[in-house]
């Protein structure tokens, strides 16, 4: 059980509190869902109730935090707090310490615990001997959750455990949490996109600027702005594309044409082949069979840096690319590589297009996640690509920040740029894309205009799908 009374917390050296006057109780058998925009204080709240702020951070704490009936400060340290609380952070990779899933869970168990039962419960039995880095995102999160639960701790704190998961994987986590709640565990869950968890939550709390605001409500879905269907020349032509990872097929005979100025969303579960497909568009992967032609260039015959001038790929995690000292220099890096004629102007235009011109002198890693995502978009925009491809551009963003990123993408489309976006978020796809492609098992299952009828031809003998858009 967690009891927080009138909690105000200020980080060491910070001018203002990160949490202000928080009152919160999570009782046994209760799941409290916390939502709110990036920077609202959700992670700080998690760390406060886990005793981390008290024992590890310093800073000024006013009010009280009680964990399992004892004040957080009365525990001798985190090792003692850990007997009462299990915590899952958003970065699953950083929490997988051992070399196999079984060892990971065994290390967290009390002597004599039934490892098999835990593995079965979390659908991890067949992954017991697998190395953590070979697991999918959902499997990693289930492993981390299993390790947090394994010690029999009565209280669980989860900081965005489903941030990078597709709806099906998030649903599996939700089902497990519902079970744990039924066992009488107290659960505090932070989630930016809480759809999968609303049904199992007893209460939903919205944090804003460090305070508990009104209960969260879902913004009504706006009708998609009418954009004329794209009728430009094809910029992407994929014919019979197959790709293998080891013995298995990641892509099975993909046929796809995308025209200039289209906004295409590619959806599907983890492992359906979405990312593999888009990595073919700028030549990071080469076809094992079939062909990929982008802006008239056969990707097999051109190196990645040449294709990058036509196709900008924005990776899921913007931190994989940021290395310069200012946002402006970060954007200029790509423009210089692409040899654009007026790099200064391109950099300025790109920063303006994503609304970051006033942050051009900021150290990129000091920007918020949403701003870093927009900076990543600016980095490829400054190269003047005809096609911009984005892998999960709204992962880890609050709905508000996701909306800002998506509005910028829509404005880019209006200037004639073709936008191709991988996403798990079906609502987002319906709202912004002209055309939605759904993948499953390395094949295109449906290809439809947003709001239109799907057209799909699937060969039962080969499992390949040929799709065309009605949009």
């Amino acid at each position, binding site marked *: 059980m967690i009891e927080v009374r009138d909690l105000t917390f200020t980080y060491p050296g910070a001018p203002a509190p990160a949490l202000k006057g928080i009152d919160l109780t999570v009782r046994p058998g209760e799941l409290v869902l916390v939502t709110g925009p990036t920077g609202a204080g959700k992670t700080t709240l998690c760390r406060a109730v886990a005793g981390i702020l008290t024992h590890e951070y310093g800073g000024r704490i006013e009010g009280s935090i009680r964990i399992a009936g004892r004040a957080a400060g009365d525990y001798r340290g985190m090792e003692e707090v850990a007997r009462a609380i299990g915590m899952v952070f958003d970065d699953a*990779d950083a929490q997988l310490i051992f070399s196999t899933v079984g060892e990971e869970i065994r290390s967290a168990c009390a002597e004599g615990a039934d490892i098999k039962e835990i593995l079965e419960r979390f659908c991890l039995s067949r992954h017991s001997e697998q190395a953590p880095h070979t697991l999918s995102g959902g499997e990693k999160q289930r492993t981390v959750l299993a390790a947090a639960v394994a010690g029999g701790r009565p209280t669980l704190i989860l900081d965005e455990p489903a941030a990078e998961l597709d709806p099906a994987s998030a649903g599996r986590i939700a089902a497990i949490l519902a079970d744990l709640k039924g066992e009488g565990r107290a659960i505090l869950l932070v989630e930016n996109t809480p759809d999968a968890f609303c049904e199992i939550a007893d209460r939903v709390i919205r944090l804003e600027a460090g305070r508990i605001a009104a209960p969260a409500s879902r913004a009504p879905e706006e009708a998609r702005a009418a954009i004329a269907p794209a009728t430009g020349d094809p910029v992407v032509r994929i014919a019979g594309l197959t790709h293998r990872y080891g013995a298995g097929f990641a892509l099975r005979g993909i046929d796809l044409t995308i025209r200039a100025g289209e906004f295409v969303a590619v959806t599907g579960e983890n492992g359906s082949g979405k990312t593999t497909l888009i990595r073919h568009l700028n030549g990071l992967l080469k076809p094992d069979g079939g062909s990929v032609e982008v802006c008239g260039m056969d990707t097999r015959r051109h190196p990645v840096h040449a294709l990058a001038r036509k196709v900008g790929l924005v990776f899921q995690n913007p931190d994989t690319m940021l290395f310069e000292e200012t946002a402006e220099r970060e954007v200029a890096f790509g423009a210089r590589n692409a040899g654009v004629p007026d790099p200064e102007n391109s950099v300025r235009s790109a920063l303006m297009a994503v609304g970051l011109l006033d942050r051009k002198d900021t150290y990129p890693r000091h920007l918020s996640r949403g701003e870093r995502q927009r900076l990543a978009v600016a980095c490829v925009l400054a190269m003047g690509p005809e096609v911009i491809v984005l892998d999960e551009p709204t992962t880890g963003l609050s709905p508000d920040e996701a909306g800002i990123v998506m509005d910028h993408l829509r404005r880019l489309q209006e200037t004639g740029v073709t936008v191709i976006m991988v996403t798990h978020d079906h609502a987002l796809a319906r709202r912004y894309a002209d055309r939605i492609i759904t993948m499953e098992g390395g094949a295109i299952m449906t290809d439809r205009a947003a709001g239109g009828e799907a057209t799909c031809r699937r060969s039962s003998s080969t499992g390949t799908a040929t799709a065309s858009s009605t949009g």
Partner: protein
Amino acid sequence: MQEIFQYRNGNGILHRMNPITKIAGVTAVVVLAVLSADPVFLAAMTAAILVLGIAGGVGRDLLRQVPLLAFLGGFLILITVLTLQIGDVILHGPVVVTVGAVSFGLALALRFCAMIFAFQVLVATTMPTALVGALRTLKFPADYALMALIALRFIPHLQIEGKKIQEAQAARGFSPGGGIGGKVRGLVPVLVPLIANALGKAEVIGLTIDLRGLRTRLSASGTRTFGRPDLLLVAGISGLAVCFCALTLIR
């Protein structure tokens, strides 16, 4: 992607050994490799470790390291030849190549191979928890034992992350070119994000260790007992030590 320094499931002779014996074996190999400058002895020791690895079912892991070790060995020999002139001259010219320099360079390269192979055998055949348990039995502080564990665990993670970063920079049109110059030019755009991201994970790793109570949980308790495989390794290492002493006395 080829993974290095990772545990492999198995039940071979090396997997059945007590981790303490294996740690002692690796220590002995390191000491002998440092003390000896005889290429023949070092080559024999490297070959013996390779044979042991093959017998223990991790030969493929060792053989995968050969191209990298050959490159590093060649580099060490080249540097030694360019900077050292001892003994008879083999080759006259702009660079004078001597027997002593080649011999010393070869010894350096073989030392390196023997130590890398021995370490690879240890980590590929020892469960990380057993390794930490053995280190704790040997009175290693918990924090150092956990550091060793985390370093091993994050080798493949860094490999994957490094590849992702390279791809992300390539997608921005970055092409540093081939050769050593290209590798040097490619360092900053890859290393800076790699290090920054790794440091970003450090806090979560530390908190996870605390929240799972690993400092106290990973005790010396899970260590295996000693058996015949351990005796065989001790005998083998003793044999190598005797050979080393004999060779030293003869000279």
